[in-house]
């Protein structure tokens, strides 16, 4: 018990040391490089709006095509003819 206490007391003999200046230089360069590689807020908005427009256009196109196709099929059915390129072929 006493030996263990003596050993634990050795821990308080550990000296405080100074960190090297190079560490601060590294931190600053890492912050700078992160800033350079980070996309700017303006870029994020531009890409976001472009991606949103593309999504809206593609969904719109799909819906329009679906609607047109179903109109053609309906018309063909009403006229009692088989539409071209349909499942009836």
């Amino acid at each position, binding site marked *: 018990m006493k030996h*263990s206490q003596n050993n*634990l007391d050795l821990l*308080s003999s*550990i*000296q405080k*040391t100074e960190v*090297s200046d*190079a*560490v*601060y230089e590294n931190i600053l360069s890492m912050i700078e490089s992160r800033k350079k590689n980070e996309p700017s807020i303006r870029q994020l908005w531009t890409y976001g709006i472009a991606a949103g427009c593309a999504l809206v256009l593609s969904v719109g196109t799909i819906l329009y095509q679906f609607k047109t196709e179903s109109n053609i099929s309906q018309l063909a059915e009403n006229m009692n003819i088989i539409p071209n390129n349909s499942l009836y072929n």
Partner: protein
Amino acid sequence: MHKLTFEKIYQSNKNLVYNLALQYVQNIEDAEEITQDVFLSVYDKLDTFQNKSKVSTWIYKITIHKCLDFIKAKKAKKRFGFITSLWDEKPDLPKGELVNFDHPGVLMEHKESLQELFGIINTLNEKQKTVIILTKIEEKSVSETAEIMDVSPKAVESLLQRAKNNIRTKGNY
């Protein structure tokens, strides 16, 4: 403004972080890496820091968290290295203790005893190890340790007692 505040915080806490990291990893290279990591986190979280606690307490918490993460990552890497070494034709990876003991704060005459003691401290669980480091090396009071660790002072006392018992048992003292 942000950069100025950061520099001020760095200058007044750099040695606190570095020395605390040294107590966890016991080598200069790893302690420097942790110090960088801690201050990058401080830089990122500076805007969200609320003055509910002292800056130093906040930095202690970040440092402990980073040290424990670093050790976990290193152990996982070592385990992976061992698995790959089973298929390796030249298994020259170190198989001993993960600690490369290179603590600049240890006096020459105590080096052997402290290396052995740190070997035992490193086998304690995270909380017991943290309590030993904060109370015995950083010489924090029980209430300060409790605040840093977000536990009650009674829990700190109990952790300290268990840590001492474990050190005694594991060290065959």
